[in-house]
């Protein structure tokens, strides 16, 4: 199992994602200007502030050369996980529905949140149980999820993760914390599972399940 973690100028959690992924498989960094996915079986678009979040979070990064390959890989059903800024990039790239807007309180907020798994039939939640609660930190300024037709998303099982009652840190529509595409192979979420893989520094290891899921998917 080989993970490829994209590195844009301004990516911050790329090495963390690589560390987390390497707990369940091999993990390499993919340079934004290359067009080579290095034979990765799953792609992670990590957190951070690609291109400084200037103009609009994810707006510039989604045009990086490597993204052409990631988009093609995703269209062929390859598993792609977008975390925080990566989620923003995948929405901007049209691989995931909706968009992420500035938090309703307009501040950066870093805190441990509890999310509930709604759909386990995706490339990154297979190792979870429906209704299972995961404790994962989130940290962002632009995480308020919006989609024009949330009913359709829910009906289609595209809402993968929901903030537990009272835990919505950003004003996201219907407490949506993570979504997937119709093919279930592309998943994006605002919380940072790569920062919840080691009790010692993560306060929880629940996030490991998302990476393990990718391995299960391929096994």
């Amino acid at each position, binding site marked *: 199992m080989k993970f490829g973690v994209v590195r844009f100028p301004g990516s911050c959690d790329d090495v963390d994602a690589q560390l987390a992924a390497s707990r369940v498989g091999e993990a390499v960094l993919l340079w934004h200007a290359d067009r080579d996915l290095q034979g990765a079986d799953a792609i992670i678009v990590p957190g951070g502030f690609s291109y400084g979040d200037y*103009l*609009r979070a994810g*707006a*510039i990064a989604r*045009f990086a050369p490597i993204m052409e390959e990631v988009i093609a890989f995703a269209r062929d059903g390859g598993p792609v996980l977008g975390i925080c800024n990566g989620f923003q990039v995948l929405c*901007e790239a049209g691989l995931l529905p*909706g*968009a992420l*807007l*500035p*938090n*309703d*309180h*307009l501040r950066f907020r870093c805190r441990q949140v509890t999310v509930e798994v709604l759909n386990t039939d995706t490339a990154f939640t297979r190792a979870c149980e429906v209704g299972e609660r995961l404790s994962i930190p989130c940290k962002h300024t632009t995480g*308020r999820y*919006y989609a*024009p037709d949330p009913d359709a998303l829910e009906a289609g099982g595209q809402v993968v993760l929901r903030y537990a009652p009272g835990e919505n840190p950003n*004003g996201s529509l219907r407490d949506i914390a993570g979504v997937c595409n119709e093919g279930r192979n592309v998943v994006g979420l605002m919380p940072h599972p790569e920062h919840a893989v080691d009790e010692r520094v993560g306060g929880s290891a629940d996030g490991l399940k998302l990476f393990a899921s990718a391995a299960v998917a391929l096994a």
Partner: protein
Amino acid sequence: MAAEDGGLRARVLIRPKAGILDPQGIAVERALPALGFKGVSNVHVGRLVELDVEDASQLDEMCRRLLANPLIEDYEIVK
């Protein structure tokens, strides 16, 4: 409006789509009365992008692909 280099100086106004919560607008609207400004309403905060372009016909595509996100924003090109 003409740009120094003879090209065109274009201005793009980008607004949050109607119906989408605009917390920045709300924050401004809340702050104004506190400063003694009465009778202000319907405040919205968006983005302003100004640029020199040689080929103005590219502007619309530029807005759709990069400067604005049509899902959440409307844009207006002012030349």
